[in-house]
């Protein structure tokens, strides 16, 4: 195999009137990958998905599937299937008829359709429910029928539009793992469109973070979390603290900045900003240290504990720094970092290699 990726978007642009939804975007997705398109609403991720499915045609650029140019192919001729956010189950057909729909269009023999529908019902754990109508199903069951219907043609690529948005919290958690399992078992590449960074972090092998019609960063979830390329990515994926300032000095592997409030901070930096350039330092809550005043004195600020929340084995503190900045600090309870009373004076600091100075 090797060589060409399963899906290639080459400099794709799509505008609606004056609004550019997708701008000069290129993206490769290999076979057998669970890929997530992540971004806030209006970032162009839905348009991108509809371009891949064929419901929209790009104004510029080409789309290739398995090396074949499919840019001008209508949806019914693409071996890509989609699971709709509303599921779009056919209300006048039974579960089995819904699932069989795609194969019927291929004109497969009845026997084959019946056995493959049965296989799909097994895959989504809906055996015995084939005769039900969509309005007799729960939300979770409808989601699974939609998945089965989209997978029965064994597409090379499956698009999933906000697949968990209509489910409640508990169900969402379980369904994430079911989707991951379905992806492994079918070997189909899944492209999930979501605005929920948790979903992308849990499910995806790789993810693209989008903003304003373009991709800010592509990478494995952990990589994106630990090495955000832009301030937008750092803020969108996971929780973080920002310090804005101007570069005052180069350090080994990084820069020192001074904030408008006179705080001097050092951070790792992969770019090369000029002295005086505006940068933002991003530091994750779990990478901030809380210490008694006097233990550390650099790369941080003294402050006062505002409040503390305990959740899922973690203590989250809000600390008001003497500069007026508010920061979030997270400590694992088992590490013994949870003993700070409200109003207690602390020194908040961080190791420069744990923080990232970002230009944009």
């Amino acid at each position: 195999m090797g060589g060409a990726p399963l899906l290639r978007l080459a400099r794709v642009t799509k505008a609606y009137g004056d609004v550019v939804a997708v701008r000069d975007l290129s993206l490769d997705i290999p076979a057998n990958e669970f890929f997530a398109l992540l971004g806030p609403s209006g970032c162009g991720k839905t348009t991108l998905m509809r371009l891949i499915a064929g419901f929209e045609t790009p104004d510029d650029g080409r789309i290739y599937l398995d090396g074949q140019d499919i840019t001008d192919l209508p949806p019914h001729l693409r071996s890509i299937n989609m699971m709709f956010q509303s599921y779009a189950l056919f209300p006048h057909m039974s579960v089995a008829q819904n699932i069989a729909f795609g194969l019927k269009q291929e004109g497969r023999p009845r026997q084959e359709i019946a056995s493959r529908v049965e296989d799909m019902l097994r895959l989504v754990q809906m055996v015995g429910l084939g005769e039900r109508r969509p309005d007799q199903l729960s939300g979770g069951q409808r989601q699974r029928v939609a998945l089965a219907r989209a997978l029965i043609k064994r597409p090379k690529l499956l698009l999933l539009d906000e697949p968990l948005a209509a489910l409640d919290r508990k169900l969402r958690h379980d369904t994430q793992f079911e989707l991951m399992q379905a992806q492994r078992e079918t070997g189909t590449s899944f492209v999930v469109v979501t605005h929920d960074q948790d979903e992308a972090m849990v499910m995806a092998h790789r993810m693209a973070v989008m903003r304003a019609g373009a991709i800010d960063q592509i990478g494995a979830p952990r990589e994106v979390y630990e090495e955000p390329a832009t301030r937008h990515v750092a803020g969108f994926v996971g929780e973080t603290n920002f310090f804005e300032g101007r570069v005052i000095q180069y350090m080994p592997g990084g820069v020192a900045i001074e904030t408008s409030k006179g705080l001097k901070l050092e951070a790792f930096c992969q770019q090369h900003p000029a002295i005086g350039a505006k940068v933002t330092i991003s530091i994750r809550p779990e990478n901030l240290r809380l210490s008694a005043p006097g233990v550390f004195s650099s790369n941080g600020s003294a402050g006062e504990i505002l409040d503390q929340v305990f959740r899922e084995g973690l203590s989250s503190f809000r600390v008001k720094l003497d500069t007026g900045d508010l920061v979030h600090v997270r400590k694992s309870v088992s590490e013994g970092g949870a003993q700070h009373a409200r109003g207690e004076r602390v020194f908040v600091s961080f190791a420069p290699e744990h923080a990232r100075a970002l230009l944009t």
Partner: protein
Amino acid sequence: MSARAPLSALRRFVLGAPALWLLLFFLAPFALVMKIALSKPAIAQPPYEPTFSLADGWHGFLDKLGALSFDTFDLVISDDLYLSAYLSSLRLAAIATLLTLLIAFPLSLAMARAPKHWRTALVMLAIAPFWTSFLIRIYAWIMLLKEEGLINKLLLSLGLISTPLSIFATEGAVLIGIVYSYLPFMILPLYNALERQDPALLEAASDLGATPFTSFWTITVPLARSGIFAGVLLVFIPAVGEFVIPDLLGGSDTLMIGRTLWNEFFDNRDWPTASAVAIFLLVLLIAPLMLYERQQMREPAR
């Protein structure tokens, strides 16, 4: 308890009002028509006998009751004239309904798929003809269709025909009249059914490999079924009994039951036979209504 009493009285009224309405304006008139159908024609005022009166007393009432008979029903069944009038009405109404459906479906589909801010205006346009009297619009069709009418003049002056078409006073003219008059009754339920359809369903069908043609027949049409049924009934039932359109636009050979009824009633002054014809028509039209009822029951709950 005391607080609920007036409420339940109101409820009883709300539930009872339709029943009362049906009793006063449907069942009572129906009983009168039935009674006339069982009477005999007479040269009198009213033109049938017997006529009941309070002065008859109990025995007089029973005598007159005995005089009622089903003779008129026998006549309507045995005389080929009525049978062929019924059949001809059903045939014309069926053809007209089919034509109306064929014209209304694409129109309704276009309306339902039009940009949202246009739809209300399009619905208003569809029902705009109702702002002019029905009778005047049918008269206008005479002006259009007759031999020296506008349509013939136009076609002649364009050189498309050399002799005027004789549309007026034919079955064709009756069909045109019915289709034109009842089109809004077909469009509204169809539009309503089509407008509710989730556009994502068609995208899903297309995504699964269905051509636009297949999507139309497997998704759009089946999901519009209730609208199609409602529209067909709204056109077919009144079209069967239609009198004004065949009378004004049809020729002497256009046989429809509405006209036959009129003739019996006004020209022959045979009220009992006219009543029997009307009752048969009613029975005939209950059948499609019952079909509709059954289809409504089968429709999945939304």
